[in-house]
């Protein structure tokens, strides 16, 4: 089957392209949730001291603080709540007195979140630009460099699309994951371009196949470790959303990179080689 894929590679380029376009559509229609650091708001982890149920707690906080409350997780002893806007920590602490101890309280006002959001866009744009420049310096060859950069862009867009689809909010942590993804997901693309462009060790197809073995092992190791991280954080430390967000974004991004690298990047490279490119 792999030989078949290798023969008719051109139409296969369309698959990651279509998925990327779908991701753009999802982002456009579904939007992207923003975490409290970027939108402003409050998140708190409570250790319940007396038996209350989720709805009692929710209405108690809603009435007490006169704000919109969402219960993110609740298991009878621990609860994670998010509240709209910057919450008065003194009022909240008084309200929770006797009901729960506050294990974590994080409140971000609009001034800070607006500033952070601005930094996020800049950081992503500059990171992508720096990565692209680095790729051009490495290959000094337009088509292969563009193939790598396009694969990186497709990974980034699909990762953001996946966040939109699965409701993973854009937080500072998930932005960190996206930045990492920009630099990390192109690793297999660099591997592929280096190996395929070298005129040594068999035909283009043979070189591509042996490289695919390496690349897929790399993908398996990195996705596997992120799945492990995700599972541990979700089940053992639900309050560490930072870690589960990072893991989730990398799982989506690195998975989409398998398609982007072996269907799109490889396709473009073969096309280029066939047309006499060096």
């Amino acid at each position, binding site marked *: 089957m792999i030989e078949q894929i290798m023969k008719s590679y051109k139409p296969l380029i369309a698959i990651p392209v279509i998925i990327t376009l779908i991701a753009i559509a999802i982002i456009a229609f579904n939007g992207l949730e923003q975490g409290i650091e970027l939108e402003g708001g409050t998140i708190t*982890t409570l250790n319940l001291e007396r038996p209350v149920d989720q709805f009692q707690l929710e209405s108690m906080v809603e009435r007490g603080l006169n704000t919109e409350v969402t219960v993110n997780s609740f298991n009878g002893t621990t609860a994670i709540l998010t509240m709209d806007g910057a919450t008065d920590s003194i009022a909240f602490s008084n309200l929770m007195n006797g009901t729960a101890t506050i294990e974590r309280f994080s409140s971000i006002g609009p001034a800070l979140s607006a500033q952070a959001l601005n930094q996020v866009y800049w950081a992503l744009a*500059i990171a992508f630009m720096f990565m692209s420049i680095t790729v051009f310096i490495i290959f000094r060859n337009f088509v292969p460099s563009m193939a790598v950069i396009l694969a990186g862009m497709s990974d980034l867009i699909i990762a953001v699309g996946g966040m939109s689809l699965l409701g993973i909010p854009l937080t500072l942590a998930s932005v960190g994951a996206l930045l990492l993804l920009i630099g990390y997901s192109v690793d297999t693309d660099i591997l592929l371009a280096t190996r395929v462009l070298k005129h040594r060790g068999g035909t283009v197809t043979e070189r591509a196949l042996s490289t695919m073995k390496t690349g897929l092992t790399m993908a398996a190791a990195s996705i596997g470790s992120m799945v492990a991280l995700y599972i541990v954080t979700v089940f053992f430390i639900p309050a560490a959303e930072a870690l589960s967000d990072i893991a989730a974004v990398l799982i989506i991004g690195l998975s989409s990179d398998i398609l982007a690298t072996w269907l799109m990047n490889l396709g473009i490279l073969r096309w280029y080689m066939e047309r006499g490119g060096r």
Partner: protein
Amino acid sequence: MVHGAWWKMSNITDFLKDYRVILLIVIVIGSLATIFAYGVPQGLDLRGGSIIQIQLEQPVDPDTMNTVTAILDRRLDAFGVIDISVRGSGNQNVIVEIAGVRPEEVVDIIGTPGKFEAKIENETVLTGADIVRVDPIEVVGNEGRVPFIVNLEGAQRFAEAAEGKAGTPVNMYLDDRLVTSPILDEGVTAGRPVTDVQITIPGESRADAEEQARDTQIFLQSGSLPVKVEIVGINSVSAELGDQFVNGALIAGLLTLIVVSVIIFIRYRKPVLVIPIVLTSIAELILILGIASVIRQNIDLPAIAGIIAAIGTGVDDQIVITDEVLKGNKSEKNKRSRTMLKIRIKEAFFIIFAAAATLLAAMLPLAYVGFQRGHTGIGILSGFAFTTIIGILVGIFITRPVYAKFIENFIAKEE
């Protein structure tokens, strides 16, 4: 394949004699010693504590920023908040860190203006509201001088109370705590209202006088910060939750290592390959923590994610090296030679350096913001950028060469 041949004694001694291997061992031992001696500084989310982020009404110059942080520091100190750190971030933000999980206390103190009172014989003669401006301090010889300007009303009250009382102390209170008691000198006890006042403090030395003058200046300014402040963010984590995070991260790290080992084993069917990959991962963890310990970089949750990511890229690199070497063994059975092997490893390193370069490039903006601004906005991720960058550098310059040497010595010779 000859089983068991990989651990031939000559191979092991040859491996251990390599300067890269020796270097790695020395650095690992050094890192461990540093970690045990000085510990690894933990971020707020791991050790528990609170961070309060304050925004100034408008951007200020570094001098004003220093005044603002000094005043806030003194006020919190005066209220008995222990273990505080107040520092500026950029030109418009101040970050207050406290050990406890009661940010309410700090919010309360910062939220209300400081109450400054000067009393002569228990009569309040000046309050913060009377102080119009505090000028820069002067030190002449062993004497510190704090000139400040009060409004006419205050000056009048002061003049009446101070009349004929040269030598009496003026007790100055900040938030009802006595902070300093300069003595009235003759210039201000004549009964004439003076708006241009100066507190003179004799010190034991020039430095002492300067410090006392500065303290007094701060107290006088406490009532009115030079710029309006607003609390824009609060972040607090209990020590218990912090412990949970540490334990969770350890479990995650262990599980990650197991998953990677299993994948390596499935792919290569060589248990011997799992050993260097696990050892390299542990060595990288130790080196990253060792460097964090030396330069006092806080390790927080994002930093832990960065460590896992850096070690993950390390495993990827090791797969690249392994495959280059194994592929060489298969396709060049006849002309297999040490030079071919060297060329293959060199090629693997080209890919590794290129991959590292793109990752470093992508991390630069984050590192820059973290370095420039500290813990505000996206700077919260500075730990993430730090561990990723250090991990990558440690990898490509220290641990990867050792892994290549291992493969060269034990795996390439095996077949």
